[in-house]
């Protein structure tokens, strides 16, 4: 996927989204025919509360050039508070990644509701375009190739 026939760099974006808000927002983008780049692969989870930090690392391990984590707006969680728990973990996890020198421009968080098909389109387009400008995440793919011992 990263090598498109035209030779243009096509970023690989993985989106971990909750089933009730962002997944439905993406559905709405579909029913509204809102076009966005075909670079994203959505992984549907019930709730942002289910999204484990290891999944972000796994995403980079499989070659994601950018990752989006997205769910319901605060107060709108289908499970009342999963997104609040998630948000607290993200605050700390981002710091850890930053300390380790991960490229923070490749890790995105968004609240996108079921009604925000347009926002889904905009966020995705923005992420893909930004990532396209930045190029492949070479620093991490290097980690994933090397055998150290």
């Amino acid at each position, binding site marked *: 996927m990263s090598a498109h026939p035209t030779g243009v760099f096509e970023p690989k974006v993985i989106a971990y989204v909750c089933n009730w808000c962002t997944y439905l927002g993406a559905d709405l983008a579909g029913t509204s025919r809102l076009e966005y780049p075909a670079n994203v692969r959505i992984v549907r989870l019930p709730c942002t509360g289910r999204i484990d*930090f*290891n999944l972000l*690392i*796994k995403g980079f*391990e499989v070659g994601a050039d950018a990752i989006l984590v997205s769910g319901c707006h*605060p*107060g709108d969680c289908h499970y009342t*508070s999963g997104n*609040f*728990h998630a*948000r*607290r*973990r*993200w*605050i*700390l*996890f*981002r*710091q*850890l*990644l*930053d*300390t*380790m*020198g*991960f*490229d*923070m421009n490749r890790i*995105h*968080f*968004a*609240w996108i509701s079921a009604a925000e098909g347009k926002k889904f389109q905009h*966020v995705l387009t923005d992420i893909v375009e930004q990532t396209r400008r930045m190029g492949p995440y070479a*620093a991490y793919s*290097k*980690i*994933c190739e*090397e*055998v*150290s*011992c």
Partner: protein
Amino acid sequence: MLEQKLRQTCRELLANGTVKVIIGYGAAPAGQATRAVFITTPEGVEQLVWNDRCEANLVAYLKRPEVRALGKPAIVVKACDERALVVLQQEAQLERANVFVIGMACDGIGAPREAKCRSCEDQVPRFCDVVLGEVTKPADAASARWDELAEFMKKSPEERMAYWQQELARCVKCYACRQVCPLCYCQRCIVDKNRPTVISTSPSLKGNFAWHVTRAFHLAARCAGCDACTRACPVGINLRLLNQSMAKATEENFQCRPGTDPQAQPLIGNYATGDKEEFIR
């Protein structure tokens, strides 16, 4: 002098049956750190020592089944070790009443004095059954707590990534950092789970990154800052940096210092509606 007092206290505890075992520090060859000793008889207390090479965080032994099998323990802790004890208490791993805690006022350990001691804020344990000794040598500068981290964060992200790639390439996945950590008490570590393999166990940089991210984040908002992991690392990876980065973020975002309040609810597993979210679009 203080050592005598410690031995006397322990002798009594064993003699009057308050505890079955003393977990303390025992002598080591010159120039080496002291070692853990497990003393079950009043006579045995003569093995106990107290000096600036009492580096280990003995709380780690409380999670061991073979130690638990010895009966109710008394444990010798420094202020930093004690924070781990408090976290264990919050996480239902420890009935406080089932442990007798002997706190040692601490001037700092290590030769040379360890980084954590130079900026120690506590020095005297706070929640012990008995506290022995007093501080004679205050910490240099508690305010300098984040200096090492701040210096490191001055590097660009690319430089930081390069640093960790270089450092973690040396990791041999011995898991000593996990074994000595009093808070790594999982009966089955995530790294040993293979369906699915969340963390690659092959000796590769990929697996090493995944492991160290996981280790550090599992300790986020929990780590007592005893630096046992960093001392234990046979290849000298500065894990303290990662722990510190989590400690600083915890303190700055949630005004929380893990292990300083036995009544507090653990940070992870709770939330506030006002937690910051400027990074979320």
